[in-house]
């Protein structure tokens, strides 16, 4: 079985006033249906950029892709005709749950109006892909029959994301809803077009811990029930532990390790991963940070970008980027000196 999504050796960067910032350096990942993949890393490590590259919504003027492929259902999204991608993939087969549910709604329309607006264009029941013959949005037809079917689907999905009294809720404005309710609506909106892949970008960062537990449980359940793949970017290792099947770690634009979730926390191999896990506050009050600072991406260190902060680094690490080394089935690491289990 081929993967639903596979990113192969993707490199890209941004042109800035100070020069070219290399934000992703040969990053790979793959994801199958019904699975939840966690993309973990600290702020500025490129996880959101990777999510946006998959979705194809990078800023057109400044972003420059310098190599690699993004294969979705076997087709390279970077090479494909962008009009076709827009009509069939972006916002339909791949949808997005944003980080901040507070700024992602339009404050002057009710949430019901905003949801039906999406479905007018992106409903899975739309017979011909709309947009083929361009009409101004106001006069574009929305047949009453399909509107009724879509509305039924909305009510059903609001029930699935555990929002009580959906009809009253749809008549409200975004400011009348709490953060948890808005994030549930965002998840419902991401699922309405019937996607194969949902990219959730830090979906619980803005939420309280009790609401976070509810939302994470919801994402996990919906992924399994609907056989949807979820790419979850997060900086919170606890959240990743909760719902992911596998975890990819990124550092300063490079992928350093990938493993199934239980193995990841039990036998981390990359020095960065082990240090990241050791930074979590423990019950006895000890936690060790990582000395040094995240490198500036305008002039990243050569080879493995973690070498200035790594006590295992040697000249080879400064020269070349370590290749992918499989330690166990499903567990690989890019390091010349990984932590190995005592044999």
């Amino acid at each position, binding site marked *: 079985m081929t993967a639903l999504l596979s990113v192969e050796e993707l490199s890209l960067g941004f042109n800035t006033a100070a020069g070219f910032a290399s934000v992703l350096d040969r990053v790979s990942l793959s994801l199958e249906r019904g699975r939840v993949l966690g993309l973990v890393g600290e702020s500025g490590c490129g996880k959101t950029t990777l999510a946006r590259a998959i979705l194809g919504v990078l800023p057109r003027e400044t972003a420059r892709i310098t190599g690699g492929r993004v294969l979705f259902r076997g087709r390279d999204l970077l090479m494909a005709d962008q009009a076709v991608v827009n009509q069939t993939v972006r916002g339909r087969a791949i949808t997005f749950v944003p980080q901040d549910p507070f700024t992602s709604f339009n404050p002057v329309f009710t949430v019901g109006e905003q949801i039906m607006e999406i479905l007018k264009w992106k409903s899975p029941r739309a017979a011909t892909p709309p947009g083929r013959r361009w009409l101004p949005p106001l006069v574009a037809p929305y047949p009453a029959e399909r509107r009724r079917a879509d509305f039924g689907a909305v009510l059903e999905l609001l029930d699935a994301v555990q929002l009580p009294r959906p009809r009253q809720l749809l008549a409200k404005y975004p400011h009348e809803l*709490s953060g948890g309710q808005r994030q549930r609506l965002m998840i419902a909106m991401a699922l309405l077009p019937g996607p194969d892949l949902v990219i959730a970008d830090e979906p619980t960062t803005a939420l309280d811990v*009790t609401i976070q*537990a*509810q939302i994470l*449980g919801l994402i996990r359940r919906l992924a399994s029930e609907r056989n949807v793949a979820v790419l979850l970017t997060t*900086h919170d290792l606890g959240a990743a532990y909760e719902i992911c099947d596998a975890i990819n770690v990124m550092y300063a634009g490079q992928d350093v390790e990938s493993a199934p979730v239980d193995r990841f*926390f039990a036998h981390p191999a990359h020095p960065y991963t082990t240090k*990241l896990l050791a930074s979590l506050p423990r*019950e006895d009050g000890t936690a060790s940070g*990582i000395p040094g600072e995240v490198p500036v991406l305008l002039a990243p260190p050569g080879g493995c970008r973690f070498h200035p902060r790594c006590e295992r680094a040697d000249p080879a690490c400064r020269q070349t980027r370590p290749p992918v080394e499989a330690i166990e089935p499903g567990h690989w690491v890019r390091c010349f000196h990984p932590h190995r289990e005592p044999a």
Partner: protein
Amino acid sequence: MTSAILSVRDLKVHFAVHGPFNRRIGSIKAVDGVSFELMPGEVLGIVGESGCGKSTLGKTIMGIHQPDSGEIWFESQRIDQLASPARRAVRRSLQYAYQDPGASLDPRWKIGSSLHEPLVIHSALDRVAREARIGSILEAVGLPETHLDLYPHEISGGQQRRVGLARILTLHPQVVILDEPTSGLDVSVQATVLALFRDLRAKFHLTYVLISHDLAVIRTMCSRVAVMYLGRIVETGPTDTIFGRPRHPYTRSLLAAIPRIGGARVTKDFWLQGEPPDAANLPSGCRFRTRCPKATDLCAREEPVLSPLQHGSAACHFPD
């Protein structure tokens, strides 16, 4: 038994909600009858979800908000009604570290000017003496002297937090209120910042009030914890008791919601439903009863008071 350095008695801070024509149509009870005592040298954690009033409580102690009723005592002096000259003297020894250090430093001032400012206001030191004191404090918080000539946007979030701390410590305060000291920091930086807080506490004999929503941080830092829900303390006690044997259902749900790496997945059977009610329109009786699995008629009728248990105390009719 030493006496408390800071004590708060039945503090209430209500914000008016205005309707059409500026008519007062209700109030948000941000802090509603909070009492606690802070002993010298201890670290008191105040934990709760957003909107529970923990930052309002901290700011009211500092005098940024005026309390509607209640008393605040600092070193056997009542400070909630002081006139501003007397208030200024208190502020020197009672300091507040803001949640977002990047936003609380003036973007058009160099770090050095920001560090001089508190000393200019609160002391009669001349420039040379101020520079000497700033130099020693910078060393204590682990910043190089070259940073004095940088602007706030040129340094990282962890360093901004160090500058915020240095600014406070130049005045040699006794009590520091830390408002969400680790929000917005990555875990690797968070660990070093927390270690710094511990070192500085030992070096300068500080007493902390640590306000946070992050239970893991509270657990590693604090000796005593107060849990707030919608403007009230629902449970308080020694850290070990709160985390080992929580008595209030809300505390239990908060603890149950933290992911435990290596443990059981909490999202599989997380039992707390719903979200906190609207703070302007609180339920009758116990504020937690709309989400509480143990709620009965009694909880709807009567608001439970914070009553002592074996260790600590809880405001619940049916503590575990």
